[in-house]
């Protein structure tokens, strides 16, 4: 990684205008958002790549991050957004109801098949009354309004003023705080303050120590101490050669 694919990078602040929800972790019936915004989500939110409105057949079972992101990886990259200050969260309870005239709340399922009621009254459990494996009620831990995150956007793109994020398409304001040139630092031992995506790290990097935030689709790394080349953007230092799905591209 001697050349720098990106001439410049923008320091961007994300300001949550609405509570933001991602299902980062699930404990019983509580669904937690971690205090971080993944860079793949941000890439989709910025409209750099698009996913279809409807997935059918086999496509429902497999995400297409690699197919979507690798084509744009040579001239665009964005870091996961790390919180500015402490993240505050809010809890909300949700419950699902049917629009049917008759419904019953059974074991984690809103039963709507009224014709199965006589069977259920005989003490049997018709399948429409059995627990479902998708949530009907529960609690959400969401990133509260007014939280700020910041991230670096590599590449020279016009960024929208507002984006929509997360499962509930929450509105987030985007401010470009500053623009910096990207400079290459020689091999050495560095400490990176920024959140990084584990799947995007370059092959040659030697990671010495880090903290891991385990979320799908790829873990986020923070407080990384590493040995290797680095990029400097303003005051910030990140490993050189960050690239969407970079761990994958060795065989190219």
């Amino acid at each position: 990684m001697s050349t720098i694919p990106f001439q410049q990078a923008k320091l961007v602040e994300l300001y949550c205008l609405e509570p933001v929800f991602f299902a980062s972790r699930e404990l019983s019936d509580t669904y937690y958002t971690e205090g971080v915004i993944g860079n793949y989500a941000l890439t989709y939110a910025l409209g750099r790549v698009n996913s279809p409105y409807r997935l059918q057949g086999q496509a429902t079972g497999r995400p297409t991050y690699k197919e979507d992101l690798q084509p744009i990886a040579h001239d665009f990259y964005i870091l996961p957004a790390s919180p500015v200050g402490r993240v505050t969260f809010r809890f909300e309870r949700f419950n699902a109801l049917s629009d049917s005239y008759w419904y019953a709340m059974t074991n984690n399922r809103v039963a709507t098949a009224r014709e199965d009621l006589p069977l259920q009254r005989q003490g049997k459990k018709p399948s429409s009354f059995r627990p479902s494996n998708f949530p009907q009620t529960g609690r959400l831990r969401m990133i509260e309004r007014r939280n700020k995150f910041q991230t670096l956007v590599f590449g020279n793109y016009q960024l929208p003023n507002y984006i929509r994020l997360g499962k509930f398409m929450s509105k987030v304001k985007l401010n470009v705080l500053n623009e910096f040139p990207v400079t290459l630092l020689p091999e050495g031992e560095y400490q990176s303050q920024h959140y990084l995506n584990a799947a995007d790290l370059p092959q040659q990097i030697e990671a010495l120590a880090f903290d891991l935030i385990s979320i799908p689709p790829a873990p986020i790394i923070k407080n990384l101490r590493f040995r290797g080349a680095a990029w400097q953007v303003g005051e910030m230092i990140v490993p050189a050669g960050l690239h969407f799905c970079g761990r994958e591209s060795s065989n190219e």
Partner: protein
Amino acid sequence: MSISKLSSVLATSYENFPKGRFITLVVLRTTHSETIFRTEGSGEPMCSEFVQAGLEGENQKTIIQRLVMTKRKQVAPERRYGREHLRAHELLYTNPKDGSLCSLNTNAPCEMCVDCFLYGFAAGGGGAQKSRIWTEDAFSILPASDVVGDRTINAIYETGTMRDEKGNASTALNTSEYIKPGVHFLDVVTLKDVTADELRYIIGNILFTSRYGAVSSRVGRMENEILGVFGSITELPSSLELVQATYDALGKPLEHPLNIKQLITASKQVIANWKNKRGVSVQLSEEELANLLTDVETNWSPDERDNFLKRLTQSYESFRQVAPEKNKGKGKSKGKNTPVEVEI
């Protein structure tokens, strides 16, 4: 059979999911005796609400206090009336919890009778049925101050006086507000996804129920008249708008008691324009409305009633019977080998 004119907004049978079929009944409710609609208990004033007098000109700037006949005070006696007949014809079911007969307010609805299917229930054996009868607060046309009076009530001893044999004075003396006879409430009742027989049942309940409000063994006599029937894919104007528009149409001066003929003419004039409202497809003409009411009365007549109620009860039968086995072996499987459900 003018009921067939409503076929586009009538369901053919009970379905569990809504299909956007609305039938709207415009009902004129007139008190025929002292009547008491209050929510605060004995000695408290009648339910009333400050609203705009009308929708046009000076009337829309004038605020008056109108009496309110709340939703529940309409529906509760009406569904009780229907249940009386279900009980008489042994069409109420037993609830599985303790085997007792379906009864309102016992937290144990049978979930299977006509009333349960139509007027709904909550907190039964875990399920709930939403009511398909949407009611609205009905408002009096005239201001509350014109149509409310006071009564002093005293309870006397058997001696016929307010003193007992020991000479102690009776404390049973009270003053209570009441609504005068001849007061008109205009009301809009919305029915969702009902079948022809359900419609007959509901209209019958409205026509035959004659006592509303408190102390209904003594007072509370009311007469209901259906002024119009509409079919639509949306709700029609509210009771309040209907009352206000009628108030405008009546002109001045207005004082109690109103001439009921003039009032009906004015109301019908107002709802004649509703045919042009967004989403309205059917309005029954005078003749069709009369035919519909005759049809309802025929079905509720002594000769027909048993058939009618049993036919209506029968219409839900598929929801009471255990459905035939679906591609599964017999025996009590404990959740093994059950077909996987696919959610789309």
